[in-house]
């Protein structure tokens, strides 16, 4: 743990089972606040599964079972007293494929604040919508067509709309599950730029298949392999001087 960054999220002994099959084995990790942590590893290594534990999205899958503890700001999110619905307002998520609701751009952003009663309709809501779109770097592109459907935007704009939608409920943590895998290189560059700006305010965890992307946007990196967490380190050090042979092999492209 580098100095000046206390752990925002701290997981201990997390295992995940889909029915009989164990997908994640005893993962313990500290994720520092206001930095970007990248989860890397070959397909099926459990990185997305672990990401979805952090906002309890796995609860929506019937056969999924999670053991161990994950604490955010010291409080266990799997404590029965924690309401997953409120947890998800604090831990936003952006998905692999942009998934704007079939509503207007404005309503896409306003959806979260509305259901959580953060703001009433009117100027207060307008302000949240504008701030969120500005932070997502989308305001100038869409300010004249807020009433048009969000599904009409380009893929990259849709993904930034989804990031703005997540920001609108004012979360502490934003989880991103391969947010650029469905985007072209230019849109990807914009989203990466955005991620870099967002880390001033938010703790970001990003799952990515692209080594270059991990190197560009993250300060910390965690390498997963076959459901195990192999190593966690500063991104720079992991990419130049990995401690584990498997990490070395993956980074240099020998498998995965």
């Amino acid at each position, binding site marked *: 743990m580098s100095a000046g960054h206390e752990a925002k999220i701290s997981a201990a002994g997390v295992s995940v089972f889909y029915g009989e099959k164990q997908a994640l084995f005893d993962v313990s990790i500290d994720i520092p606040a206001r930095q970007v942590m990248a989860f890397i590893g070959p397909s099926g290594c459990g990185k997305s599964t672990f990401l979805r534990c952090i*906002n309890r*999205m796995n609860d*929506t899958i*019937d056969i999924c079972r999670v053991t161990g503890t994950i604490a955010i700001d010291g409080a266990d999110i799997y404590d029965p007293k924690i309401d997953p*619905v*409120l*947890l*998800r*307002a604090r831990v*936003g*998520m952006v*998905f692999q*494929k942009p*998934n*704007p*609701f*079939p*509503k207007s751009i404005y309503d896409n952003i306003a*959806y*979260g604040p509305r*259901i*959580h009663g953060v703001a009433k309709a009117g100027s207060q809501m307008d302000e949240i919508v504008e701030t969120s779109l500005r932070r997502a770097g989308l305001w100038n592109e869409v300010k004249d067509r807020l009433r048009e459907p969000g599904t009409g935007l380009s893929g990259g704009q849709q993904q930034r709309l*989804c990031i703005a*939608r*997540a920001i609108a*409920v004012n979360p502490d943590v934003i989880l991103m599950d391969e947010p650029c895998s469905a985007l072209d290189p230019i849109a990807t560059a914009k989203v990466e730029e955005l991620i870099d700006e967002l880390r001033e305010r938010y703790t970001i965890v990003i799952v990515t298949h692209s080594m270059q992307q991990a190197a560009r946007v993250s300060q910390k990196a965690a390498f997963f392999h076959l459901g195990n967490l192999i190593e966690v380190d500063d991104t720079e050090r992991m990419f130049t001087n990995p401690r584990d042979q498997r990490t070395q092999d993956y980074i240099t492209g020998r498998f995965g």
Partner: protein
Amino acid sequence: MSATSLLAIVLILSLIGYFWGRASAAGLKRGGQGMHSIPAYHGYFIALSCGIPSFLLVLIWLATQNTVIDTLLIAGLPAHITDGVETSRMSLILSEIKSIAGGRIFGTPDPALIAAAERYNALRGTASLAMVVSALAVAIAAMSYARSRVSPEFRARNSVDGILRWILIVCSILAILTTLGIILSLVIESMAFFSRVPVFEFLFGMEWSPQIAMRADQVASSGAFGAVPVFWGTIFISAIAMFVALPVGLFSAIYLVEYADKRVRSFVKPLLEILAGIPTIVYGFFAILTVAPFIRDLGTSMGLSVASNSALAAGGVMGIMLIPFISSFADDAISAVPQSMRDGAYALGATKAETVRQVLLPAALPGIVGGVLLAVSRAIGETMIVVMAAGLMAKLTANPLEGVTTVTVQIVTLLIGDTEFDSPKTLAAFGLGLVLFITTLALNIVALQVVKRYRERYE
């Protein structure tokens, strides 16, 4: 020889053709020839070429034979019978000739008719013999022509494909032509009705009393054809049905898709589908024997006057019938909303109910609306339940405890029993049928358009 045994023989000829073609092609192949198509295709080609023309010939022959024979008969009748006779009288003469020919003789018929009957029998015999001969000739000629084409270069495989394509085209054209025929017969009869009763009076008249007095002293027999009360009855009962079916069907679909776990779903869904398989006449029993008395007793105990065939009973049971219909459409529509929409909403901290209400239902709305429109058109056209459970009196009332009548009930009552097809009372049924047809057709077209647009969005 009967047409059935003739067709059987043609079928056997086709089979022979198949084996013949396959064997000759196989012979060529064994002789070391590189064949374009495998032997079985040569067999299929011969079988189809032999069977289809001959089959079509028999069909066309059977369809036209009677008309041709009738024309010949009439042409051969002596002048004293045919002179100045109308078409309707002529068909009576023809049927008399045919019954004489069949050996059923009443009284002492005109000797000319007896001669005609003998000629009729002779004509029939010739016709049937000619049919057999020509059908077999066509079959054998086609078979030998097809056999002559068996060669290494012949693309039997492609030719069979082409023949099959034509068979498919003919089948679909038949379906379309049948529909056109139905529309045409409906329109023609309705024209006859509207030539007696003005369209305007029919569509906007407020009084419906189709019985026409046979004697001057009969009561309540003015013969009024204002269909508004009848249309109102259909609309009213359909509305009650949708009032029952829409919430129950929609909510059960939401439960099954979003809340129920796999075991419950696999148990409840087939149960709902059983509801869709119950014959409507059984719903009719249910309405008249169980629901109607229940509503009447309940109403009476509350001091209300309830007709024994209340609109509420008929509409309510019709609603139950429509539940699986709406439920299965809504189920499909909600299931078709991509999982990513749910994920997006849950990840923002929406509860299940919020996700359903604000994200899934709006996204699934076009599909649900399409299903509801189809259900409405079913409700409007539904006959058996209302014939059993709704009233016969056309009444303009908004009280669901009174009896109303519907378009379909009126059509059934107008056409039951001895009917004269030139009285406006009977023809009114076709007028009603035409309105019903146009309404449900319009609803179906709109519904299919809505569903189609929705499909374009997600596939």
